């Protein structure tokens, strides 16, 4: 109480005088606010990177693609939500989450869009982070300023992450807002928390691709090369990796007639383990578990395990428990990518272009 009392006048004073000043001299206030603050150079850099990202044509294109697809998927979800209401559906109480997951097949739902376009966004924001500075000749000039070298790569990462976060929060809340208006049912607290975790998960997922493309931007001098390298990794995981896994698992698949249940389960675990090396698989498993509370297990279940279960949604804690490995794996992959970008950048000798 005492602390609070102290804070209030202290906080009020500059606000009042600022207000007073703005009455006296219009236009002064803004200048005072932005112009006279001594800022940490790191903040200055992050601000500049954010404004560069937001103003770039590339970002405008990416965000319009994503915003349009979001609206498209929202539209299909809204037109189909009536048919999704099923009195016998155990997940009926989670109607709101269906906005993000259902589709009639004409347009994929929101979560599929995020898992598909997210990597593109990450690669798009990061592929020229370092090498463009270098080829413009600004990197060596920047390094001659009294800043630590890692400010540069950190500022790029933080700025892009900030832009991505704002964007995902905005889009997901947009879906939520339009959903509330059109279906008239507000989300429950649990649904809201599930959506928040889903947003955080998408940010981590995109941050992974962002860091991957920053690695390439440190390694390759040409922005085109690093963009292609990033896209190649993405395509590999989305298209070729499942194919390769199929080839491998077909070759070693135990024949269904001969295999014991134990063998079949082991094989299936092995196949899933291989598949989960791909970050996109991790992400889609995690998101579907989060947004579809009826998902009870991500691995094979035997009839014995299913026997006697009451069909019903998992509580939030259990859903999170189920995807905890996915979450840690994604975060550690993101951090690892950042380290692989950071260390070579710190060791690199920067000459003029």
């Amino acid at each position, binding site marked *: 109480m005492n602390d609070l009392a102290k804070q209030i006048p202290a906080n009020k004073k500059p606000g009042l005088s600022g207000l007073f000043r703005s009455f006296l001299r219009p236009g002064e206030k803004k200048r005072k606010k932005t112009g006279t603050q001594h800022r940490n150079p790191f903040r200055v850099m992050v601000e500049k990177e954010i404004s560069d990202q937001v103003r770039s044509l590339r970002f405008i294109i990416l965000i319009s693609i994503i915003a349009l697809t979001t609206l498209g998927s929202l539209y299909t979800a809204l037109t189909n939500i009536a048919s999704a209401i099923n009195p016998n559906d155990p997940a009926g109480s989670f109607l709101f989450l269906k906005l993000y997951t259902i589709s009639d097949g004409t347009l994929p739902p929101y979560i599929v869009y995020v898992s598909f376009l997210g990597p593109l966004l990450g690669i798009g924001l990061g592929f020229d982070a370092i090498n463009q500075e270098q080829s413009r000749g600004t990197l*060596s000039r920047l390094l*001659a300023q009294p*800043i630590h070298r890692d400010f540069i790569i950190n500022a790029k990462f933080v700025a892009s992450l900030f832009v991505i976060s704002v964007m995902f929060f905005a889009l997901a809340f947009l879906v939520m807002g339009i959903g509330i208006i059109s279906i008239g049912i507000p989300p429950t607290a649990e649904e809201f928390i599930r959506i928040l975790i889903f947003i955080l998960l998408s940010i981590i997922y995109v941050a992974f691709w962002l860091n991957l493309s920053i690695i390439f931007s440190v390694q390759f001098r040409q922005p085109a090369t690093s963009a292609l390298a990033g896209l190649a990794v993405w395509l590999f995981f989305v298209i070729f990796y499942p194919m390769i896994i199929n080839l491998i698992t077909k070759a070693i698949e135990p024949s269904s007639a001969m295999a014991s249940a134990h063998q079949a389960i082991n094989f299936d675990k092995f196949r899933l383990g291989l598949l989960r090396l791909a970050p996109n698989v991790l992400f889609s498993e995690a998101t579907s578990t989060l947004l579809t509370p009826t998902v009870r297990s991500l691995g094979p279940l035997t009839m014995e395990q299913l026997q006697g279960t009451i069909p019903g949604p998992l509580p939030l804690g259990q859903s999170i428990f189920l995807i905890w490995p996915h979450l840690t794996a994604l975060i550690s992959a993101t951090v690892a990518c950042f380290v692989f970008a950071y260390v070579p950048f710190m060791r690199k000798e920067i000459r003029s272009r």
Partner: protein
Amino acid sequence: MAESIIELVGLTKRYGTFTAVDHLNLSVGKGEIFGLLGPNGAGKSTTILMILGLTEPDSGTVTVCGTDSVRFPVEVKKKVGYLPEDVGFYDKYSGLENLVYTGRLNGMTETEAIEKAEVLLDSVGLSEHIHKKAGNYSRGMRQRLGLADVLIKDPEVIILDEPIMGIDPAGIREFLEMIVRLSKEEDITVLFSSHQLYQAQQVCDRVGLFVGGKLLAEGDINSLSKKLAGNSPYLVEVGIAGNSKTGERQRKNHPAEILQKMDGVLTVEEKKGRYYVGCTRDISSGIARELVLSGFELTYLTKKEYGLEDIYYRYFEGEANDE
């Protein structure tokens, strides 16, 4: 010499087996304009990077304004302005915005940075292009913007890496005059690297000749030329026209012989019809008189001073011969 601002001791940098900078000792005093001269690949840029603490030396120490660049690069970079070779700017930002960004990175507020940048842009002659996008600047304008960018942090030392490369002669002159003026007015120490010897000669107080990672010679141009010339400090170049009237005499008395007999002449060399007379003191008037009296038609006589170019080539040849 005044207090030393840049002090390099035993500086060495190796890339694999290649030694880019080899046990370099150098000291630059306050307010001096020092030219680091040498051919491409001599290790000039590497030395500059080490002075700024942008790359770590394998051995040796760098002290700038009393601070160790290897251990406290940020402190050094607060005091040192560096204009890299072929400097680049953010193309989408105007010249002013580019400078303001640099200013803010140096801890200025936005209003301070704007005021300072406007003054600087005016002093480098870019006041008309202040709001033009840096992407539309010409090479020379970029270089001047670079100089303003270096000066916005009020540096004690500025280091310019090949600042005059790729600018036209008028531009070079203007740029160098600007550097000299700034150095004298603000008492800024200037270190710049170049392979354009003639231009460097015009502005440098002292130069260091840099070949193969070693400093071959350092000093002001006069002392270098004295060192180079050895015991014949004066060289007179004489041109003589062939004269039909005196053709016969000329054969008997070869000009070289006449010159050789003169007092104070050490060497006489003939190259393409020109005679190069090395002498102990300035006897150019005596040479002229002697030749005219002997019936030669003197067409050309110049007292040659060793320029940086000569010094450089002399040293460079010497180096090449040693190997």
